[in-house]
């Protein structure tokens, strides 16, 4: 795991939370097959989370960083920590500890609109799924206005954001490409 670049970056940023060692040997709930079948695994995950007692753990394997799920479970008292194991394979560890200040040890930053950002090899990722309009737009604009260089921004959205392109164009950015998956539409934003 040490050779994983994103993991390495996380360790440099302060390292994983102390409780992670206790969660590593828990069997993961792998939802990649459910998503590949075109179904939403939310109900299955909630079913798995329901019997967990305070102090317990839940581990989810997903094809992407499931940021909205992490926000939802944070609201139910779960702290979380995510690792990108390989391309298309994320493992997220959840710990039912009250969820207070959960993002401090979660290798992510949460913007004022509730969007989660993190860094990967291909650029800065921002997850705006399940945010009420116009918060996805605001979060993306806030992020790109804070970028000085030519870094790519990868947006995780739950729909094609029709209102985004005109605002990006005004700021000298554009949607370079788009990939559509179940519950995860990805957009690569680059400077024009």
């Amino acid at each position: 795991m040490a050779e994983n670049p994103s993991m390495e970056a996380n360790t440099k940023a302060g390292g994983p939370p102390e409780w992670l060692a206790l969660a590593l040997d828990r069997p993961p709930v792998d939802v990649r097959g459910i998503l590949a079948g075109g179904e939403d695994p939310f109900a299955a995950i909630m079913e798995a989370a329901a019997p967990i007692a305070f102090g317990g753990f839940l581990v989810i394997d997903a094809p992407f960083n499931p940021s909205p799920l992490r926000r939802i479970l944070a609201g139910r008292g779960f702290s979380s920590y995510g690792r990108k194991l390989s391309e298309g394979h994320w493992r997220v560890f959840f710990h039912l500890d009250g969820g207070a200040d959960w993002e401090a040890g979660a290798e992510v930053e949460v913007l004022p609109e509730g969007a989660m950002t993190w860094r990967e090899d291909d650029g800065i990722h921002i997850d705006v799924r399940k945010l009420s309009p116009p918060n996805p737009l605001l979060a993306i604009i806030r992020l790109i206005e804070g970028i000085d260089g030519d870094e790519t921004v990868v947006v995780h959205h739950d729909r094609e954001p029709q209102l985004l392109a005109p605002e990006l164009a005004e700021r000298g950015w554009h949607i370079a490409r788009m990939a559509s998956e179940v519950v995860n539409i990805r957009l690569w934003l680059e400077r024009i």
Partner: protein
Amino acid sequence: MFPGSLMMGAKERLLPPSLPYRFFIAAVVFHMAAWATLLAAGPEAVLGFMGGQGLVLAALHMITLGTLAMSAMGASIQLLPVATRRPLGPLWAIRLMFWLYAPGVAVFVAGLGLAIPGAQHLGGALAVAGLTVFGGLVAANLRQVGDLPGVTRYTWMAVVSLAALAVLGLGLVVDFTKGFLPDHGAVAVTHAVLAGYGFMGMLALGFSTVLIPMFVLGSAVPDKLAKRSALASGIALTVAVVGVASGIGAVAALGAVLGLVAVGLHAHALSGTIKSRMKKRFEPFFRLVWVAVVLLPLGLLVGLALALGAPADPWATLWGFLLIFGWLLTFVTALLQRIMPFLASMHSSSLGGKPALLSRLAPKLPVDIHLACHTAALVLIAAAIIGGWTWPLWLGLVAGLAGSIAFGGFAIEVIRRYRTHMNAAAAANHEG
């Protein structure tokens, strides 16, 4: 991986540009026609207007049906599905809606202006049929939405108001020839309240909870605040309608007071958005929004005075003017200034390549001229109504017509610049 996330794709949400634009172009044409008709009617007819068939009533409906409702329909068919993330309905239904409604309004206002009952009945029936399609499409969309209380509650009230005002409107038209209504005036005022504050007012307030945050890049209006102001607006409208329909001034006055409270709550709900906005400098269209925001409560205050016994001449005319031309027309033209280039920009990358910049699609001179002429018209006509003066009224009508022509020029220029961009994109594609 989270509930409600499997939604429709963008292709179902982004309509062909010709669909919303046909409504906007019709709205612009009726806008100019309304001011020209008022000028043709002359200042005396405007000052003495207390209802009844003729050019003034025709011009009034060119604004309400032709510009305000037409713009609301054009904006709703594109923005409601984007906001609610649910499809609005089949394209043929939207086309049918336009082809029933736009000719219907044209025939109806011609019938009102020239006092031709057959044209009034035919045009009114067609317009109501178009509005029925619109109401049905919006209601079907709203039934699928549970997560946007700020928009949906206001829009539901608009749909209910639309049904009621359409029934009353048809009754008023038939009453011109049959004379079956016991109190034509009371029904006309109820129809006006439902149209101005119910249908158009609720749509304006509801859409503002989505559009204003989007256009100023401010935080979303909290659901709790939006629900509270929607509830207050609904109560105010209900009380006001009961008051004017029953002719009980105290109840109508209570409705006006509650309306002022609702406006205050709505302003409070949006104040957080304005304070948190990322665009520190307001765009040009916002100048008209400020004018509209001032004139909405002012109109309610005049309505309150009327309900408490102020004489109908001149206060009823002033109330109607502030409601329709002051608050609604100002607000709708403000939003059209922003929506038209915005939609053009959204569509401008459909052939690939860079999207057209909003700032390059929207010409500034026509909107500056429109702002100056429109505000001048508001001040001059309001003063003329209060003072009973004909020459400021005449000047105001000329200013209003000049402003509407400038606004028409703005619309044409947006479309021309969009087409230029698309032609260049098509040529680049062909060469590539």
